[in-house]
């Protein structure tokens, strides 16, 4: 098993294009995850596979880059006072269970319906979860921005916080006092989604915002703690199997450590609902991308018949849309940062003028 893995990883030849691709995607993925708490993995894993990396090595190397990135991002955002470590650890513990259950379900699906069925299950999960949750996040962000950027705790969170079901937990930074029993399903769902589509944050962050009542900033920052714990656990498992290609990991890390810090800095520049806007946008575009991949799996299962050329075009379109999701997220983040920086410079100039003549 180890020898096979070693042969497989040795097989990959790194060239300038693949290094450049991994570095840039690493940077953009880091930027997005520094800002919204997760992201990047959904492009990196298929991206590496399209470079010829075996699926298991791609997943393992991606996982191995994810936890140091999350560590650096979480540390940075902790310094800005946005991370609730206790909430992160509680969520990560239940997410660990969720991952195991998610893997079991995957295995069951694989045994029953084969690879195509498994792919279809993954894609359908992507589309359903991302359209529902992403749509709600986007709608809420739009509503918040119309209100002038003032975030409000949802009535569901307020209701759940009133229920006294021991053990009650106080999350200081998040400023939430809630029963542990309500955090567990959110963590569990995060883990399950992470095992299924590799991006647990798409359910963890909205869960913390809308169910537990934490702010968007704290939720996205705390998600980095969850990502660190889960990524570390996953990496240990994959590394024991000898699947981590450290070269791929280091190339991605070179970009993503730059990106994650920029993203974390970005959160201090923008209004809180920008996190939701970026998250909602990315989720909806990724859902479209995965939706484009569904016909292929349906055909493989013999449920529909379709021209192969159309399927190839759809496949390419799906991957491009996926990259686009990340790219658009990055453009929004950098754009808002740029605007905030410009406004700050203008204010400084005005102040200097006032100081000189006032």
């Amino acid at each position, binding site marked *: *098993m*180890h020898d096979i*893995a*070693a042969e497989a*990883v*040795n097989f990959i030849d790194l060239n300038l294009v693949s290094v450049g691709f991994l570095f840039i995607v690493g940077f953009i993925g880091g930027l997005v995850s520094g800002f919204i708490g997760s992201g990047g993995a959904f492009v990196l894993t298929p991206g590496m596979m399209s470079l010829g990396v075996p699926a298991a090595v791609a997943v393992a190397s991606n996982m*191995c*880059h994810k*936890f*140091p*990135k999350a*560590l*650096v991002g979480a*540390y*940075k955002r902790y*310094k*800005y*006072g*946005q991370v609730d470590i206790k909430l992160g650890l509680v969520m990560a513990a239940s997410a660990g269970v969720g991952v195991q259950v998610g893997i079991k379900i995957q295995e069951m699906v694989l045994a029953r319906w084969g690879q195509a069925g498994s792919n279809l299950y993954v894609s359908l999960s992507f589309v359903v979860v991302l359209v529902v949750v992403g749509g709600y996040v986007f709608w809420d962000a739009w509503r918040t921005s119309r209100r002038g950027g003032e975030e409000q705790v949802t009535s569901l969170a307020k209701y759940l916080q009133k229920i006294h079901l021991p053990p009650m937990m106080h999350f*200081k*930074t998040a*400023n939430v006092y809630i029963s542990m029993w309500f955090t567990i399903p959110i963590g569990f769902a995060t883990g399950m989604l992470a095992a299924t589509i590799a991006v647990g944050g798409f359910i963890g962050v909205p869960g913390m915002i809308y169910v537990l009542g934490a*702010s968007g*900033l*704290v939720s996205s920052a705390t998600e980095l703690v969850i990502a660190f714990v889960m990524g570390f656990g996953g*990496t*240990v498992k994959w*590394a*024991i*199997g*000898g*699947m*981590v*290609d*450290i*070269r791929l*990991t*280091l190339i991605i*890390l*070179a970009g993503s*450590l*730059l990106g994650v*810090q*920029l993203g*974390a*800095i970005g*959160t*201090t*520049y923008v209004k*809180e609902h920008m996190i939701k806007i970026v998250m909602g946008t990315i989720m909806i575009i990724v859902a479209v991308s995965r939706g484009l991949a569904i016909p292929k799996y349906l055909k493989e299962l013999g449920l529909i018949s379709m021209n192969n050329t159309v399927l190839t075009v759809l496949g390419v379109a799906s991957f491009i849309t996926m990259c686009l999701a990340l790219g658009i997220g990055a453009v929004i983040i950098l754009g808002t*940062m740029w605007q*905030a*920086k410009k406004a*700050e410079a203008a204010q*400084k100039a005005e*102040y*200097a003028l006032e*100081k000189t003549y006032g």
Partner: protein
Amino acid sequence: MLDFFKKQLRGKRKGQKVASGPGKKQPLTVVNLKPVRPEPGSGSPQPELKRKILVVGKGHTFSAGFMDYAINLAARLDYDLIALNVNPALKASGKFFSPYFLRLRQKFTQQARAAWASIAEDLEFSGIHGQQVVKFGEVARAVEDLSAEIKRIDFVITDAGIKDEEITGEIPLPVFSITGYQGEKIMAPEPVSRKPWGKTITFGAVTAALYAAVFLNGSSVMKYFTRGGWYAALPIATVFVISFVHGAFAHHLWSALGIEAVKRVQPRPEAKRPVPRKRPRPELRLNT
């Protein structure tokens, strides 16, 4: 003319920034700060008849922001300005006084006179009569002596370097001080940030060396790193080291490029107490 000053005093009484001196609870009377107007028909006011502001600094010069403020205030109130440069370090101790001390005193006086030249130009430009006095000794004592020598000093403003306890004593005048560590810092709030290029380059070089070490020995690295089992510690340790070194490089790089966090958006609970905002203008503080 007095409106500005009255406003300042009213602001104090509302408790916006309360002085910490012993006289802070006593209400200020604006009456005794009223400048004496020359009698009608007596012609232009004589310089010595005008009321005066005494500005006190401990060095041979005053901080620029402080002096600008004092000149503006004097111009608005139509006061004269007396500048006192005190050097407590060169006070006479006992009967013996060394020639070296004398030399230092001369040097201080020369420096103070030189520094005064540019201030005098500003004063002339603003149409204010100014005078410089250099004294050696305790600040409070020097002010006391001067208030006996020169009449009609209405109040004292001390530069940022002078602490509250240095000026308390038998001074029969209201004393205002510039808050803040240094006058300039209040006047120019944007901090002069030093770009950490040195650290960026150092961490960048270490990062580059680590990457080179891995990629130049690609085959043996891959051989051991993918063995599995306990060898799993190798890739994990590597990414931890890289995340520290490269992370530090990235951190310094962004701050060297001027991209830094602008505010603490979500203060942690212990930091939730309202932090007093640094005011862009210097403040007067009563310390009678």
